[in-house]
């Protein structure tokens, strides 16, 4: 049975796509904006820029002082933030209904008139803040750069997903005010933006408020290009080994997958569920429960739009166990899944867990708004929130086996192995 969250859409003459989904159960409204720019648009020498730019969006605009965006919204009881990812940058706030227009006014001011307020000083400070974010989340964490290694190993040199959203210290250092102006002009425009209002508001009222504040915004996004063609699976195994002061060996086994929005990606993601995405998955049963050569096994599929998606399995090797033997066991299970297909119970579990987590994601206005923006921007259709589960339920055991065979075969894997450095182990014991 399809879900039936109400969805109303309108595109303003300037190209801004507006989605409204009324929900009067709580006296709040979420404004959620997706701009069609992420790290996949960054060029060589400019990695990390989309994210640094996102920070500058909080430092003031034509009519809004530095720090005022947070202060004005917090004072009205808003919860707000922004994030940057490979395919997009999003900005969002959930406010008591009476503050909806203030939120739209603030967003319109920065999405239309950021450059009036950007200064060298705010760029320099936010560059430092972002470098601390990189140190905190990547460089100062055990395994912190493992996914960065996975992207580089799985995706071809020069491909948009080859580098991480956080970028490199050198490129962050090189970012200039001129880059900020150029980036804003190329990507921040109504025709490259989706704005969703979800919550305690009627569609007509929401459309009128958005029109009032965003209707005058001009500009065309000149940096947008067609997406790249599908990248085939790796044509042979790739291996990256790091020896570091980590607590235990950890294997990341990455794969190229079909692009977001395809049935084949759904099937591949269910295959990853069967392997390691669930508590009853094959690698959990075998390596964690029975052989006890691993202390944890997980898997995920991340859908991307630019010619390829990413799938990966992560296994924490138990202290004293042999990482190579664990990798061999993973490969065996990859082959077995492709040849035998999933059991009925595995398929049922994958679908039931996806249903619960999908319904859980849609339970709150904030995440519902984010999903509406996502599908409007990246798939051209916000109604995916209502139809996704039906498509998932239509995936068959044969489809899962086929996807596993085509995309998750051992010869298509890229392994990033973080191994305990022996001298570090001795240091720790001493």
């Amino acid at each position, binding site marked *: 049975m399809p879900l039936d969250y109400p969805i109303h859409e309108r595109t303003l003459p300037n190209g801004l796509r507006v989605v409204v989904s009324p929900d009067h159960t709580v006296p709040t409204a979420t404004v959620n904006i997706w701009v069609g720019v992420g790290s996949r648009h960054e060029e060589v020498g400019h990695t990390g820029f989309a994210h640094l730019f996102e920070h500058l969006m909080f430092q003031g605009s034509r009519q809004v002082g530095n720090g005022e965006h*947070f202060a004005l919204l917090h004072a*009205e*009881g808003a*919860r707000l933030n922004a994030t940057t990812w490979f395919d997009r940058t999003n900005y969002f706030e959930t406010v008591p209904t009476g503050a909806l227009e203030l939120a739209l006014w603030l967003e319109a001011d920065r999405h239309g008139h950021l450059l009036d307020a950007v200064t060298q000083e705010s760029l320099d400070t936010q560059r430092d803040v972002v470098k601390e974010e990189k140190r905190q989340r990547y460089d100062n964490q055990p395994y912190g750069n493992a996914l960065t290694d996975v992207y580089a190993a799985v995706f071809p040199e020069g491909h948009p997903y080859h580098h991480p959203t956080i970028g490199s210290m050198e490129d962050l250092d090189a970012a200039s005010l001129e880059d900020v102006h150029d980036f804003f002009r190329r990507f921040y425009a109504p025709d490259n933006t989706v704005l969703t209002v979800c919550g305690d508001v009627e569609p007509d009222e929401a459309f009128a408020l958005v029109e009032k504040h965003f209707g005058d915004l001009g500009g065309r996004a000149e940096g947008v290009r067609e997406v790249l063609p599908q990248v085939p699976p790796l044509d042979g195994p790739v291996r990256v080994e790091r020896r570091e002061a980590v607590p235990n060996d950890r294997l990341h086994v990455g794969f190229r997958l079909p692009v977001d929005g395809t049935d084949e990606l759904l099937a591949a993601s269910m295959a990853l569920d069967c392997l390691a995405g669930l508590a009853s998955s094959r690698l959990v*049963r075998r390596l964690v429960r029975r052989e006890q050569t691993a202390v944890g096994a997980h898997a995920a599929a991340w859908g991307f739009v630019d010619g390829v998606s990413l799938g990966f399995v992560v296994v924490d090797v138990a202290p004293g166990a042999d990482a190579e033997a664990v990798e061999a066991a993973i490969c065996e299970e990859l082959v077995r899944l492709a040849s035998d297909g999933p059991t009925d119970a595995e398929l049922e579990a994958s679908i039931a867990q996806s249903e619960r987590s999908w319904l859980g994601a849609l339970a709150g206005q904030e995440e519902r708004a984010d999903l509406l923006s996502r599908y409007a921007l990246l798939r051209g259709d916000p109604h995916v929130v209502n139809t996704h589960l039906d498509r998932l339920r239509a995936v068959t055991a044969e489809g899962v086996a086929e996807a596993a065979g085509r995309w998750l075969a051992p010869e298509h894997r890229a392994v990033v192995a973080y191994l305990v450095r022996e001298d570090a182990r001795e240091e720790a014991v001493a």
Partner: protein
Amino acid sequence: MTRPTVAPPRPWAFPTPSEHVLPNGVRILLHDVPGQYVLSLRVVVPAPLSAEPAGQEGVASMTSRLLDEGTSEHGPEELAELMERHGMVLGAGVSDGGLLVDVDVSQPHLATAADVVRAVLADPVFPDAEVRRVLRSRLAEIEQERASAAVRAMRETSRTLWRPGDRAATPAAGTAETVLGLTREDVVAHHARTVGPEGATLVLAGDLAAVDALGVLTDTLGAWTAAGRPDLGPVVAPVPADDRARTVVVHRPGAVQTEIVVACPGPDRSTPHGWAPHPVLSFVVGGSPGARLDAVLREEKGYTYGIRSSFRPRVAGGSFVTSGSVRSEVTGDAVEILLGILDGARDGFTPEELRSGVDFVAKTAPGRYATADTVADETAALALEGLPADFTTTNLAAVSALTVDDLDEAYRRTATGEWTVVLVGDADQVVPAVEGRVPGPVSTVDV
């Protein structure tokens, strides 16, 4: 276009649950939250963590992790599969006040989920192989915690802040030493001593319109029985260490950042002085980029991605903790500025700060408690803390009535200037940089 005016928010109250008691003593609190199709079920079973036998610290936590590793009806793998085929996710853990089991499940699977919850509470068999596996994975987890600067910092903070031997000074899930000594018998005995229906509260939140919730719960949790348990006494607040006002550097060679924690004992939500000022203080001191700490350390200096302050209530007692990380080179400056801001706040807050903090805390409440899981979590927390079901609403009214004096008094009551400071970073760089700028003696320990 000029800045729009804001209409005042509509009155709002935390939803009131309907209350029932099953014949076996389990208290049931039901929240019908329309439109929430994933139901959130929580069970709290009060038992002081300090009732763990000496030397067995961690047994309560390990027992909670083993509840769903097999019942007399289902083996561990079979149980995992049963839960997943019904789209259930089950977690269990302990706080200083007792056991919390949480389950999220979509509406049609409620009956199965409730019966699984009954079985794991009433009838876990703790297979020896699973006990050994879970203990081993806790040992691996301890190593992972040690490798994380933030977790390592909190562990050292607890050890320094609370009196040696106090349960709060040791990690809730135990140390390598205590976990290595645990046996299946310890787990079985702990379960028998602490887990039973009397005194337990079950919270169910979500769209219950099409569900005979009470009937389902009576048929399932109503069948939960257990032999009589000893009186374990009340949960008591941890005792602060006499020498807590000092600085400990945890040496992490080559670290590119220093993880900073500054802490002192704080109140729980039952404090006779009133809980209301504390979330407001958390916000104005360290709850946003414009708060006192980040306005300087992040937005002016660019030293950090963010420093947060928060009051962290336990069932009994609590702490006031400020934490975050800065690049290694600026550690000395950052610590001095941070302590200066925390101490300087004793001079008082401004009416503007009061207004912004009160508005934030009061006006975000409807959004913070909009989903079944957040409602269930709050009601379960209130049950474990022994607070009335209308606490959240009456506390919000008290927040709105706060004055600057209330804030100042609450802050001064907690922030006496006797700070425990823990710095996880490269000691060769950190120790010389902070000497003379931090409270008490500076000692260094290995990571």
